[in-house]
């Protein structure tokens, strides 16, 4: 018996590919997980100045979401917590910020994907068990674990990339 390293399916001895998920079970170049250092990646991030932050929705906005693919900037104001997701027909789930006008479906954004919170002096992001994951600067978040984000970080909901711009007190 060969247990698939990917999906734990029991395959018959001598199998070369998992019948359940198609992962390669033997051979030199079997799929392995690699840890890629994100330090380099961080240096390559687009530089942001504090000047770039221009709230256009009054003084009370504590941050905004810059959608990198389409260029829009969505301000975050008047409350401390926003759920991010995509409204779909016939579903009762209503995220606070609906990303469906920005190709959220094609980008693999879940209906309730993540939440961004202002909590005292810091801002945190938490994945809500989304199908395609939430990434900060390319690093995947554990679902339901808060992660501090900084001004200029690139957040990816699935493939939808958003730069987070924060007003630093």
């Amino acid at each position, binding site marked *: *018996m060969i247990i698939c390293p990917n*999906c734990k399916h029991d395959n*018959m*001895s*001598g*199998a*070369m*590919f998992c*019948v*359940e*998920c*198609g992962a*390669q079970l*033997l*051979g*030199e170049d079997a799929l392995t997980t690699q840890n890629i250092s994100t330090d380099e990646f961080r240096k390559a991030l687009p530089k942001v100045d504090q000047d770039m932050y221009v709230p256009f929705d009054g003084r009370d906005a504590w941050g905004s979401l810059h959608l990198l693919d389409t260029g829009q900037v969505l301000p975050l104001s008047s409350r401390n917590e926003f759920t991010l997701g995509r409204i779909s027909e016939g579903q009762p789930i209503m995220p606070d910020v609906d990303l469906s006008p920005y190709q959220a479906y094609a980008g693999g954004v879940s209906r309730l994907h993540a939440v961004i919170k202002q909590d005292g002096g810091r801002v945190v992001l938490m994945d809500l068990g989304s199908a395609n994951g939430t990434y900060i600067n390319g690093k995947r978040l554990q679902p339901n674990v808060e992660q501090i984000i900084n001004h200029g970080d690139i957040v990816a909901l699935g493939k939808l990339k958003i730069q987070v711009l924060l007003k630093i007190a």
Partner: protein
Amino acid sequence: MLSNKPDYYALLGILRDATPEEIKRAYFDAAQKLHPDKNVAPGETEIFLGVQQAYEVLSNPKRRSLYDATLPPELETNSAVKYELIFSRPNLVRLAEPQLVYGLLEVGSREGADKIPAPPLNVCLVLDRSTSMHGDKLDMVKSAAVQLIRSLRPQDVFSVVAFSDTAEVIIPAAINWETNKREALIQFMQSSGSTELYQGLDAGLQEVRRSLNPSRVNHIILLTDGHTYGDEQACLELAEGAARQNIGITGLGVGAEWNDIFLDALASRTGGSSAYISKPKDIQRILVDKFNALISTFADDVILEYREQENVKINYAFRLQPEGGTVEVEDPIHLGPVSRELPLIVLLEFVIDPAALEQASIMLLDGALKISVAALPAPIAPIRLRVMREVHETPSSDPPPTKILTALSRLTLYRMQERARVAADGGEYSSASRHLQNLATHLLSQGENSLAKSVLLEADSLERMHAWTASGNKDIKYNTRALLLSGPKEQAR
């Protein structure tokens, strides 16, 4: 290539250790095919006489043993074909559970095949003209048929049968008919009625049988756009009869409404395959491609006859080349055609039961390949395939051959699609959807983005609507099948 002494075993198409019953059956089969009352090709009467002489000698045990003593030792090199059978593992492992071994069989023409003239055709086009074909589809079929008629060579026999709930011979099987007359008959075709495949297939086979000749490529191209009801079993029996006479069947399905699983079963019984035509405008291109493939046939069908071994089973077989398609595991197995340019490649999956592993070595395959080369009048001696494998205590550390790994990596995708299909048919939609999502992940990693996208769309549709989109399952099936074809080709270059 030919020795001065005739090889009686080759003439009858049997192995040297054939039993008296096998000799008798082979003689009757050959006599039926080659009898002077029936044969038309030059040289066939001579072969018939040779077959009779062979039977006289081999059916008499005394004369047979005298003859056997004069034979040179058995060599595999006297044949016009070459073959190779490689395995995923060099030996088996002694385990208390079933294990898998993969075999990749390649059968090709030996060097110099290009000097053998291309075989003449005996092709019948069996066209669905039920009401649903009306309009675009029938118009495209007509223009495609006209183009085929214009491209015929003088030696080709061509016929056309149109069917709905009845069948009509539009162009009877003949050579050298006036092109204009044929074209006019095609243009007069009108759509009406429902689809009853049996009618068309039966009439088409009758046309092909009129000019049935082993030195031609005898083939039926069936084009349909709908389901047939109730006569599936009868159609499959017709196909089995066709296979025994070396008549191949290709199934072409237009649009979303036809039954691809049935058409695959029908075609694969003769070693043929099915193809999917998603848009009417592709009818012409696919028909012309199929015709060209028939013209470049080297052998119509390679047949694997084998003795079933206790505790060893051929579990699954798939043809990767020259036309990707399902291979029915029966006895005998119709593996498919060999093209002049592309050898036949078939992947076989063996399951070995632990009970077999008590011996030091076991017989994995004991059989023979029977090949009829259309352009060669004399039959080719069957190729013996006898594969023994040793049973070891520990698995070999050798990596599997790259050829098998590459072929399997692609075939795995096709089989995931098959599993999704089975799950969906059984009402397990979330499991089907999960298989498709896994499939999409692999497609993405292989750079097949647009196919991955349509697979995801189907996964979504299955999950939410519990149904495929109109042509979704066919799109995925035939597109993953097309990947298989591009796989081994790249490998060869």
